[in-house]
């Protein structure tokens, strides 16, 4: 059995507001998202947003998500906490926006550890960036916390504000990491 297995890949053939992975197997130790993303929002760099679900139901739409960021753009460094939100705001803050040339897609990796645990709140670590932009070329290390101890079996990914479209060509692969 391979340690890292690809569970699913979504490649957008047209702009779409949602990428969703459902019925995620509970047989892995950790999950990992590898992402190439562009958002329709008028910005140079912007965030993808993520919601999680458990128990076979829909994703949680409540204000149960937290997250922090450590980032830099050009010569400026920023840090901050997200507070309670209705989606993970910062963990995938590496999408290219409409203000940079259309072939540019941001890139990043999000690790979701012990996602199948029934005792841990789900914690995610994201790292990525967008290299080109007149004012906001961006790179950062980010966190996400879902205040729920349920085992994650659904991941939904959207654009800015959990509303904006993701651009055609956006690609997300979900991997599972085994522990034996």
């Amino acid at each position, binding site marked *: 059995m*391979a*340690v*890292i297995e690809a569970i699913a890949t979504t490649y957008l053939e047209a702009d779409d507001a949602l990428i969703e992975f459902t019925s995620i197997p509970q047989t892995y*130790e*950790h999950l990992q998202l590898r992402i190439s993303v562009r958002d329709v929002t008028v910005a140079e760099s912007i965030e993808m947003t993520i919601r999680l679900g458990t128990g076979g139901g829909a994703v949680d739409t409540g204000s149960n998500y*937290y*997250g*922090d*960021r*450590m980032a*830099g753009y050009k010569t400026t*460094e*920023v*840090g*901050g*906490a997200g*507070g*309670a939100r209705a989606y993970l705001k910062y963990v995938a803050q590496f999408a290219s926006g409409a203000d940079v040339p259309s072939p540019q897609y941001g890139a990043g990796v999000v*690790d979701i*550890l*012990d996602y199948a*645990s029934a*005792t*841990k*709140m789900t*914690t*995610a*670590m994201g*790292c990525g960036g967008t290299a080109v932009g007149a004012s906001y070329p961006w790179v950062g*290390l*980010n*966190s*996400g*916390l879902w*205040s729920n*101890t349920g085992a994650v079996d659904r991941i939904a990914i959207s654009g800015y504000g959990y509303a904006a479209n993701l651009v055609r060509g956006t690609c997300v692969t979900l991997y599972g*990491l*085994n*522990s*034996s």
Partner: protein
Amino acid sequence: MAAFTVIEHVPVGAGGVAAVVLDDGGSSIPVDGTYDHLLILASFRYTASTYAGENRLTFNGVSTTTEYSSTWLDVSEAGGSSAPASDNETSGAGVRAGSGAGVDQTANIYSVVKIWIPHFANSANYKQVFTQNIMASDDSTTDYYWTLKVIAGLWANTAAITSCTMTGSSNYTETSTFTLYGVKGA
């Protein structure tokens, strides 16, 4: 051949543990070319009455502080404003290996650390370590504390790495998990 292999997975048991030794099931990590790099992934929490503690990582049981140095960029907050900052130390009880939540944080919040140790088996060079770490918070405690951190660590020793020991600032709680992967090049 698979690129990634699980060398050891350690789920911390009842009562917690002060340190986690990651090797090949009690034997040395193979340094015969079986693997080229090491990767550690951990989900952990401390038992002490504190908001945050810190891991140290040592190798081969060596505790000589002058062999371990670290440089880091981090941001953290304890109920106030936050700004990223960098710092370093030229000796320590191991390379710095990430911060984690203690029991003063909301229950069931675990911290995350990912540690890369490239070219670990060579016996000519010092060993460089790269760490990414998050300690998240739900902001619900009066003096909540979160941090994000990247760390470059150096073990100034040319010995091939045969074991890795993660030591917390207090015991790791039950259900903390540590996984050591061996990564093979082509």
